[in-house]
């Protein structure tokens, strides 16, 4: 079976199992979820993998702890628990991400500066390793930290217990404000006291307008929860010119002007705030058959200027990108290979072209020079040496996973490409 990551630029051809009962799950290959990682983190070319999306039940709920199978999506948890007064403590930008994937990537959300990463709210994981099934908790420090953000290399995550966050309403109260340039953008992110805060950047704006965008701040507010209506679909791969520079420029301009100059406060559905792009199923097809790459890095607070240089390089490259996100991160992270560090994170999409690969290579070296880090959930182009230098606890992780999986059964295209685990 041929399958790909969300960016569709990389594909794998291999045996894919999709068990519907726990009794038939095997530990013969890495587990994958809804493949919302952009690159090759969920691919195992010429090997076996286990698609966990059919093991997606909520198997217990006690106090504020939910026990959920790995294939359950974040959006399902939000839909079921919001009316009961809870939300997943951390929600990534797509509700299609599975709980297993959210753990394997230790994902973050718009509240990272307050609430940390996804893995920090997990209290127990049921892991199918090569020696069978066991439940692990944060007390099992080494295997725990190797599993949270651990790219699925310690085994198949069957289920997990998550501590949910109590909420007092069912809608999001969102304040949106325009920021005219980079300095204003950073200033507003720094000054924000909101629980949820994120900036959208017009990555094509140059000169004085470099860094202009919209800052969104939000709290869970009053009003009853209402589930979103059906999503739209992208029925076919868009032609390559669909996201050509003039179109993206027009889109970005309109997106910026959408928010009035004086700003506004509106109530939104929970899903519309957290998972804005999920309203269009398969939006990755807008990038056409060749697919796309996303670059995301984080740099330390003091290196904010490095991020500005990256943005200049992006804006002057002429490579069109409608989706660029800037956010201030806290220090919270759950595992050895977790992405977050205190600082600023920038995420930008590029159509998969040679020029984009060159630009991303440049951005990666800028991130490296700034003491920053590239996000493995998005990466498809970095080299192993750079990644290892960016992740200071990499050797603790590789030692732990090689002990848990000495035959390297759970390796993926990503761990092989970056040689994260060394030779057998």
């Amino acid at each position, binding site marked *: 079976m041929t399958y790909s990551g969300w960016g569709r630029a990389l594909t794998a051809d291999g045996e894919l199992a999709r068990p519907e009962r726990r009794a038939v799950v095997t530990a013969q290959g890495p587990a994958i979820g809804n493949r919302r990682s952009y690159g090759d983190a969920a691919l195992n070319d010429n090997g076996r993998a286990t698609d966990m999306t059919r093991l997606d*039940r909520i198997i217990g709920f006690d106090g504020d702890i939910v026990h959920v199978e790995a294939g359950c999506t974040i959006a399902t948890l939000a839909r079921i628990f919001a009316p009961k007064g809870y939300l997943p403590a951390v929600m990534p930008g797509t509700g299609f991400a599975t709980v297993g994937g959210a753990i394997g990537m230790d994902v973050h959300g718009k509240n990272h500066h307050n609430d940390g990463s996804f893995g920090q709210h997990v209290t127990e994981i049921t892991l199918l390793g090569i020696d069978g099934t066991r439940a692990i908790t944060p007390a099992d420090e080494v295997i725990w930290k190797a599993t949270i953000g651990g790219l699925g290399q310690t085994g198949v995550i069957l289920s997990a217990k998550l501590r949910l966050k109590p909420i007092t309403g069912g809608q999001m109260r969102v304040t949106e404000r325009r920021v005219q340039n980079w300095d204003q953008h950073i200033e507003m992110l720094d000054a924000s006291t909101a629980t949820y805060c994120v900036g959208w950047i017009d990555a094509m704006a140059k000169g004085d307008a470099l860094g202009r965008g919209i800052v969104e701040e939000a709290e869970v507010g009053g009003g009853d929860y209402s589930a979103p209506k059906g999503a739209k679909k992208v029925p076919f791969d868009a032609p390559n010119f669909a996201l050509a520079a003039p179109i993206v420029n027009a889109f970005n301009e309109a997106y910026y002007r959408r928010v009035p100059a004086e700003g506004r406060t509106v109530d939104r559905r929970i899903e519309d705030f957290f998972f804005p792009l999920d309203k269009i199923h398969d939006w990755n097809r807008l990038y056409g058959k060749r697919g796309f790459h996303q670059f995301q890095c984080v740099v330390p607070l003091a290196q904010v200027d490095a991020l500005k240089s990256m943005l200049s390089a992006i804006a002057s490259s002429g490579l069109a990108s409608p989706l660029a996100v800037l956010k201030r991160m806290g220090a919270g992270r759950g595992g050895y290979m977790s992405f977050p560090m205190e600082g600023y994170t920038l995420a930008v999409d590029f159509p998969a072209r040679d020029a984009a690969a060159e630009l991303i290579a440049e951005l990666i070296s800028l991130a490296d020079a700034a003491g920053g880090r590239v996000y493995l959930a998005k990466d498809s182009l970095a080299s192993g040496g750079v990644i290892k230098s960016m992740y200071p606890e990499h050797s603790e992780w590789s030692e732990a996973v090689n002990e848990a999986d000495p035959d390297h059964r759970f390796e993926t295209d990503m761990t092989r490409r970056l040689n994260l685990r060394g030779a057998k």
Partner: protein
Amino acid sequence: MTDTWIILGATSAIARAFIRKQAEAGAAFILCGRDIVDMEATAADATVRGAPEATVMPIDMRDAATFDAVIEAAKGLEGTINCAVFVGSMPDQAEIDADPSLIDGVVTDSFTGPARFLTMLCPVMEAREQGVVVGISSVAGDRGRLNNYVYGAAKAGFTTYLSGLRNRMGRKGVHVMTVKPGPVDTAMTWGMKMPAMTTPEAAVEDILKGVQKKRNVIYTAKIWFPIMTVIKLIPEPIFKKLSF
């Protein structure tokens, strides 16, 4: 008043999607099947989603002695009793050719087992003069095809049984709906290339619409109605030479 669904074959993917949807609508369940651990997970899921009650009971279509406990439990239920049948098995036709004794199992799983169970449940439902039986048959039962005619024959038997059951129970206020799915994206079809495939969730949407409208026979995906109408019209001298 509580609506309870007795689910035969609760570990099937279509059953699971059905249980979810009905749990969110507030229905209660007796889940029957062989994998108790799996059904307990489904029962917990149903409870979190809104089911007031979800009981798990072991049942094996090939062991009718396991039916009694479920029938007894049904008698004790308050409110409306409904039953949805998702059982069936489809070994490869080539495996059956190699070991013809497999035929007995296929016929038991897909036809005589559920028919026997429903015949036992019938009086309990008729006494309440309400409720719905949803029987999952198959387009494979509409005509015997080269690639799975044993499964098809069993489903044809089940379709005919359901038709008679509808005739009988309709008089007592119990509605029987026959569902003929084409290929559905489940473990049964995983890895096979099949035409006009639907998802368990979409199939369940069709089923629930059908129940609401008191339809007698539905196809899911809907495209299978015209397809099977044409296939049934092909004269046998031509049909016998086709292989699909």
